[in-house]
């Protein structure tokens, strides 16, 4: 069948694209998490000097298109002498962007932990940082998992934007096959199916993580 031939022909190119998409998504998830935690903490601690840079950063990253951020980092910074490879620039841009969104999920979750928890911790002699570390954050992470997963799953699809900086990820790979076969519909659908599969893998991880984090609350 003709459609099968087409997909068979496209498969190697698409799978090479998937490889890049996964590298970008996973590396940026780690980068985003590394950045998101300190940002969230910085925005809740009672110090203006920690709060406002973090607030400005989050506002800037959420208030400008990711595509513009990728352009600035890859094409803009060389003019002031900073040059990244496409891989580094892409991971950097996605991490910086995802970090801002993740910090908001986490901040919401930290604020969502009942204030009674703070009072209780202080009453047993824990200080601010100890309360945050041992009482609040463990509970906050559990609350934050669904909305952090949102950001991480969005990230998988946002990797399609790095095609503008010479990276042949899944989307650009798809366009390359379409350019020679002139069959946009089946190939875009194939790309959509692959993105969906990747996202479903991460959804499974989310479910497992939620179960694991929820165990402590079920056992007693």
């Amino acid at each position: 069948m003709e459609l099968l031939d087409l997909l068979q022909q496209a498969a190697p190119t698409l799978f090479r694209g998937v490889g890049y998409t996964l590298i970008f998504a996973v590396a940026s998830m780690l980068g985003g998490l590394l950045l998101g935690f300190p940002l969230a903490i910085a925005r809740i601690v009672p110090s203006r000097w920690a709060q406002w840079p973090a607030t400005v950063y989050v506002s800037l990253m959420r208030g400008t298109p990711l595509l513009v951020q990728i352009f600035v980092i890859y094409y803009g910074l060389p003019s002031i002498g900073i040059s990244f490879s496409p891989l580094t620039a892409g991971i950097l841009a996605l991490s910086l962007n995802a970090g801002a969104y993740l910090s908001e999920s986490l901040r919401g979750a930290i604020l969502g932990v009942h204030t009674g928890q703070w009072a209780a911790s202080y009453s047993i002699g824990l200080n601010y940082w100890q309360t945050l570390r041992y009482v609040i954050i463990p509970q906050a992470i559990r609350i934050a998992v669904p909305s952090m997963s949102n950001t991480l799953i969005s990230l998988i699809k946002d990797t399609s934007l790095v095609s503008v900086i010479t990276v042949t990820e899944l989307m650009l790979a798809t366009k390359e096959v379409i350019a020679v076969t002139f069959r946009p519909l089946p190939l875009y659908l194939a790309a959509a199916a692959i993105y969906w599969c990747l996202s479903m893998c991460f959804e499974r991880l989310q479910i497992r993580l939620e179960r694991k984090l929820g165990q402590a609350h079920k056992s007693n």
Partner: protein
Amino acid sequence: MATTLSKLSKIAAAILITSVTLNAFAADLLDTVKSRGTLKVAMEGNYPPFNFKDPKSGELTGFEVDVAKLLAAKLGVKPEFTTTEWSGILAGLGAGKYDVILNQVGITPERQKAFDFSQPYTFSSAQLIVRKDEKRSFPTLESLKGYKLGLGQGTNFEQKAKAVSGIDVKTYPGSPEYLADLASGRIDAALNDRLLVGYLLKSSNLPLKAGATFGDIDKIGIPFQKGNPKFQAALNNALDDIQKDGSFKQVSFKWFGFDVSKAPAAQ
């Protein structure tokens, strides 16, 4: 999306200007290329028959890949190819991510403000594509007033069509998208490089045919960063050399069946 793109083009323009001024202090590109031993060539990689990935081997191939190999050999270096989307390709050249672009870049006054160009290596003109059963005739761009015309975003053709008021110009990311829309009747005609039209119609299997060609001739050159006179001279010499030894003509016949370095009337 339109606002994002216009923002992007402003940013890209700002970047181009800054990087071009900075580059004035750097060594001539020819020295850089020779000492590096490679010529970094950028192209879209999804623009057959000019440059595209062979669907079977996944290798980059096409007319411009062959030309780039010939030119690099004349310069005594190896070509190193990068593929990227058209939307970022000129910004990447401005930022020094690669040395040259071989991607049917038309020499326009606007682009010449930001970059220097080699002498033209191909000549072409714009050509319409219409549905096979099209009864109306569109002999000129002006005759498309009031009709929907599809073309690639940020291309020469976009500027040409927008210069004629009254044409309903629809821009698309690439030719597969607007050809599909043309075949399904959502637009009345599409505009592209006449060198490309023959290939498109042959390989796309869509119910389309070639329409009128528009007289003015597009000169296609190789852009690179300003302020590299030695590189420009060497590149032009290399272009002359591959013309003289017949290797350009051979490559041209291989992909188009005629010599694209001659003006369209003589092809």
